[in-house]
């Protein structure tokens, strides 16, 4: 297998090297990437969007639709994890659920409503017992020092994320970074305190709304922009207060929605 893999990698590498070798040099100021749309953004960005951090301006304003679809992608990941079957129990032996109205099968042939049901029954159990127990248990005893430090630092890290969130339009940072930090704090707490207590941080009743809050907020802001400017996801170009407000709504929604989605993926994988 290995020689073939190396050959394949080489086959891919050669065209790629040839491709990148003929690109315009990357740090030349007159490369197309610096003279076309990008240059226009640099020139007019602050005036048009009211944001000093142009990456945030591109993310939320010029290419806001990309970001919309991007939050949809993380939501998709959560929906995917939630839709997967839970636990490891194979289907009950010999009588996988029969549709109603069908008689018992005369031959010893197990019906196969699910393609993998019968094929895996014999194998699954035996194999997993052979395997040695996982060397890293999921509920490792955590040293009291670590526990203390994590609990001590958690609020401060969360505050750092909040600061990053609210200054995202003038300094590096913004919704996604805050979301990732929120999720990291949550996961750290989950590992230290046990997930039951961590899970309480995201109340069950709110979850269905919180996990989808980012796409929903985007749709709302897109609608408001449509009413105000006549263009989907449009920002009123000369009203910086409204622009800023719309931007903040999006940033907060991305941070909360993204954080909740990542936290829930963590919870789902832990159980």
């Amino acid at each position, binding site marked *: 297998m290995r020689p073939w893999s190396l050959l394949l990698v080489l086959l891919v590498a050669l065209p790629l090297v040839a491709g990148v070798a*003929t690109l315009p040099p990357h740090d030349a100021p007159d490369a197309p990437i*610096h003279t076309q749309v990008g240059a226009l953004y640099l020139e007019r960005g602050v005036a048009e969007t009211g944001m000093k951090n142009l990456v945030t301006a591109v993310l939320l304003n010029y290419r806001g*639709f990309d970001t919309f679809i991007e939050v*949809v992608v993380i939501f*998709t990941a959560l*929906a995917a994890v939630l839709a997967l*079957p839970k636990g490891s129990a194979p289907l009950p032996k010999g009588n996988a659920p029969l549709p109603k109205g069908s008689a018992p099968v005369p031959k010893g042939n197990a019906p196969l409503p699910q*393609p993998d049901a019968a094929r895996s029954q014999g194998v699954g159990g035996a194999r997993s017992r052979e395997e040695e127990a996982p060397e890293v248990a999921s509920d490792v005893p955590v040293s009291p020092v670590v526990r203390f430090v994590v609990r001590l630092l958690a609020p401060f890290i969360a505050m750092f994320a909040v600061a990053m969130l609210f200054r995202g339009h003038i300094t590096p940072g913004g919704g996604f970074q805050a979301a990732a930090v929120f999720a990291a704090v949550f996961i750290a707490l989950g590992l230290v305190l046990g997930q039951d207590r961590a899970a309480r941080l995201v109340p069950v009743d709110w979850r269905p709304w919180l996990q989808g809050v980012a796409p929903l907020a985007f749709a709302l802001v897109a609608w408001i922009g449509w009413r105000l400017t006549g263009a989907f996801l449009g920002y009123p170009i000369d009203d910086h207060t409204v622009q800023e407000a719309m931007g903040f709504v999006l940033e907060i929604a991305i941070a909360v929605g993204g954080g909740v989605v990542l936290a829930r993926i963590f919870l789902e994988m832990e159980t």
Partner: protein
Amino acid sequence: MTGPWAEALPWAIVLPLVGAALTPAVAVRHPRVSGFWAWGVLLVTAVLTAGLVSELVARGPFSYGLGGWAASYGIELRFDHFSAWVLPLVVLFVVIVPFSWRYLDHVMPDERRPPFYALLLLNAGGMIGFCVTGDLFNLFVFTEVVSLSSYALVAVGGRGLAAFAALKYLFIGAVSSLLMLFATAQLFVLSGSLNMADVSLRLGEIGGGTAVMVAFAAYAVSFMVKAAMFPVHVWLPDAHAIAPSPVSAVLSGMVVKVGIVGMLRIYQIYFGAEVLELGAFNLALVWLGAISIVMGAFFAIFQDDIKLMLAYSTISNIGYIVLGLGLASPYAVIGAAVHVFNHALIKATLFLAAGSIIHQTGFRTLSDLRGVARTMPQTSAAMAIGAVSIVGLPPTAGFVCKWYIALGAFEANQAPFGFALVFGALFIFIYYIRMLNAFYFQPPVHASVAQASETPWSMRGPVVLLASLCLILGVLGGIPLTFVEPAVLDLLPFWGQ
């Protein structure tokens, strides 16, 4: 110049996506509500897309600058004749979702329904976006929505093997998406723009070059993987056979077409720029298409499992489409473009009918399903119509496109490929004869087959409707043809002929 419906363009994409985000909240008390919710959202989306198509028919292609920014400054959505594919796509979704209401009973517990329907809606929204976006990076992001939801949909129904098939699909699909991102970045570095029309213009100014060619190759490989063409088809059979039947219909009928639509978009960029001599690539497409046809048909013959057989037949039919595109003669390209839709219709019919049979009897192989036509006459008839249609016999939808592609082969003086096409159809025919023989003329071997009852109406309705559409479009096959013709004739001058 634009009418009222042009305003609906972004909402047609956003509606299913937002509907998906709301699904868990809507269904929080009664999980089964999610099915009706998804259906309602899709119905409204279908109305919106119908409006878009009517706008297209009335006033020709139109575009929408998101955020009020002009085309190459912000993100542009563009609705042209190839984007019109979103209408049949959504309509098929509308038909497939009611089928899944009852079908899911033996696939998953109720509490997993909301995320399942959310994934279906995301899949639909992602595909709509993919078809109408005019921005290369946006195209990539939509690809990811479609792919990610597809990986998950493969795995929802089963445990071990389904997860394995989904993971295989995920690895191959992720590499193909990555190649796409790489190619997008390369074109961006070369042209400084992400807007398709703008990139095309600037590539024309730059002229050719190795980097331009490598970007094209990366795109081509990426979309070949998405379309499951011959050398990179390995992910398809397991994934499509193991998924729950409504999902198989979606994946086999529509998601693989993402590769075809993407390929058309890249053709538009490159031929507009006239920077590459793509005759050689067309020839490669023709050969790969021909090999896909014969190979898919060949493997299909030896399958006993009906869903696996249908999955292989998808590879074969993608071969037809690609062959038609590669031949680059008007007839062939028109036939291929229409087959994108007709194959979706036929494959949905076949997978839903197969799903009904599996649902009612609990068996999925030909040898177990002997004599099923006696107890499930309507479903079996639908299966038969689908089979006749996919072989390409006259009074059905499949005939028109394959006839056009074959005509195109002779028109382009590529008669051998015309014969390859006919041989492929013959191979498939042998298989379906075997299937129909087993269904209709052999005595049942299992009691559950002999005593099976017809499916409930929520499942039988969609199947019967789709089967009759196969027949109707066979008779009225001219309508989609005349619709696609102007788009194809616009594109052809650049096509390398």
